């Protein structure tokens, strides 16, 4: 709880002296601040209005540096894995070509077939008829399409006997 204030004559003397001063400054100038005060204030408020104080510049510089460093590391990290990715793409096709090229190696010679237009060589070609794709396919075991939609037999495997269902079907047909 606030105690009641106790004023003494000295307090009253000071209060009256300072509260009842005229609005205009004294002729002696004791209560008039120098012009330099306003000059300093004006400089401060004008510079702060532009917003480019030292602290603002420092904060903006820090943000710019942080962003630049972050961008550098981001792009550096993404650039490193990019190089190895291109290599498998280049090396991969030869591997595939080797597998595919093996059965095609034989028909390479028949590619000279366009020369067949020459009638002199026609007989030679008939005797040594190079296998083309249509001829090669019947010789391959995989081309023997199984009946009744059965699956193809894998090359290098022995043919399996029909299962019981197939046997029943065959027996019923017979």
């Amino acid at each position, binding site marked *: 709880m*606030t*105690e009641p*204030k106790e*004023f*003494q004559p*000295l*307090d009253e*003397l*000071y*209060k009256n*002296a*300072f*509260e009842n*001063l005229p*609005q*205009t*400054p*004294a002729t*002696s100038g*004791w*209560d*008039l*601040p*120098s012009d*330099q*005060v*306003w000059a*300093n*204030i*004006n400089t*401060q*408020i004008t510079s*702060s*209005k532009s917003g480019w104080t030292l602290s603002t510049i420092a904060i903006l510089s820090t943000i710019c540096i942080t962003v630049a460093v972050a961008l550098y590391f981001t792009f550096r990290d993404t650039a490193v894995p990019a190089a190895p990715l291109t290599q498998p793409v280049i090396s991969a096709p030869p591997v595939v070509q080797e597998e595919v090229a093996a059965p095609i190696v034989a028909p390479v010679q028949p590619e000279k077939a366009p020369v067949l237009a020459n009638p002199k060589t026609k007989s030679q070609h008939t005797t040594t008829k190079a296998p083309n794709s249509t001829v090669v396919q019947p010789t391959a075991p995989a081309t023997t399409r199984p009946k009744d939609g059965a699956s193809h037999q894998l090359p290098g495997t022995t043919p399996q006997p029909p299962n019981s269902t197939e046997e029943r079907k065959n027996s019923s047909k017979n």
Partner: protein
Amino acid sequence: MQQWTDAELVSGVLRGNPTHQTALYKQYSVPMFRVLLRFARDRAEAEDMLQDGFIRVYRDMGQFRSEGALGGWIRRIMVNTALSHLRKQRDFLRDVGDFTPFENQIRTEEDFASNMDAETLLKYLQKLPPGYRAVFNMYAIDGFSHEEIAEQMGITIGTSKSQLFKAREFLKKIIDKSFIS
């Protein structure tokens, strides 16, 4: 000089209008300087306080609520500015047991020949240690209670009371001496 209303000054300062900024300073610099002279030890320190105080006023003008008078709001900022200046002084709240060194400072012909106007009373007040001066100003002239002084200055109520007692004793001694002479 054109007199502006508080509302005009506030809106002008908030817009950054230089005319209103200058007008605000011209209208309030003298009364605020008188307040700060009571808290400062000399004119130079009062001018520093005035400069810092007005910069705060322009910066914080957006926080002013029109319910109260603009002059009262500016005065509170000035008193707070003065107290933060005083708190930085090493001898803030120093106790003075022996008044002799301070009495000697006012034994000049000018001091004894003066009458008790505000300027003379100010000279006596500025001889006080900062803590005495601040508490006496706030209690006797600005109307603060001991609770408010303790809160604003970061001291106990007991310290505020003892500083006020010592300030009064100090001032009485000075004034008595000047009258006797």
